[in-house]
């Protein structure tokens, strides 16, 4: 059996009893299909990042459980049928269960500057300055120009001198 986690948002209109009823319904389903509830985390009412069905808040619950495909189908069916679910997401659980049970969240070290605040004037910003293309342009132009000029000059001189010579020769004869 696979370990899954499902997170769902309940409509904030319902009261505590209704929240309990919905969460218990899921728990019952898990038991019915010989699954095993490993962890349940009620976040409570939380502000939504964007309104869903014109609600700005929602009751978040996260459940980690063991189960098979039939159980998942049944849970998803329940989410679709029942009214108060605003959103739900079921994914294969990957992570450290002990860590989550301990209530700890992964944080990355914060000792460095936030890259989003990198200013142009600041020498120590993580983001470098804008790219400059001037250098490449200068190089190519300085390479090309003398080469061309040299060729043209050589050609003119060679042909010019030979013409002069032949003209003078014929005139003399």
């Amino acid at each position, binding site marked *: 059996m696979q370990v899954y986690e499902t997170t769902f948002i309940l409509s904030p209109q319902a009261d505590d009893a209704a929240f309990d009823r919905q969460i218990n319904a899921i728990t019952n389903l898990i038991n019915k299909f010989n699954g095993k509830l490993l962890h349940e985390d009620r976040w409570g009412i939380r502000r939504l990042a964007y309104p869903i069905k014109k609600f700005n808040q929602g009751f978040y619950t*996260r459940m980690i459980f063991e189960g098979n495909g039939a159980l998942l189908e049944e849970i998803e069916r329940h989410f679709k049928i029942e009214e108060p679910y605003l959103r739900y997401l079921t994914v294969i659980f990957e992570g450290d269960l002990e860590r989550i049970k301990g209530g700890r969240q992964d944080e990355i070290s914060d000792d460095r500057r936030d890259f989003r605040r990198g200013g142009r004037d600041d020498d120590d910003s993580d983001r470098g300055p804008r790219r400059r293309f001037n*250098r490449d342009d200068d190089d190519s132009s300085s390479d090309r120009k003398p080469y061309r000029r040299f060729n043209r000059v050589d050609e003119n001189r060679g042909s010019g001198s030979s013409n002069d010579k032949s003209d003078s020769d014929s005139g003399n004869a």
Partner: protein
Amino acid sequence: MMAEFHKKRKRVCRFCEDKVRTIDFHNDRLLKRFINERGKIVPRRISGNCAFHQRRLTTAVKRARHLAIIPFTSEIFR
């Protein structure tokens, strides 16, 4: 003079440094550091993440958006 502009700064992936294997999509504080003001995912070239963790981060951000943990786009630009 140009060399000063092209000073190379070695960036190490923050997730690799802390040996994070999985990125939890419920952790909005963590995810918010990798989206810009418009709610876009910050590219790897700027955040310095490695390819492995950038992929994980992208899925985490997208899952979190679905659950309204982080916004798809900022309120101001809507």
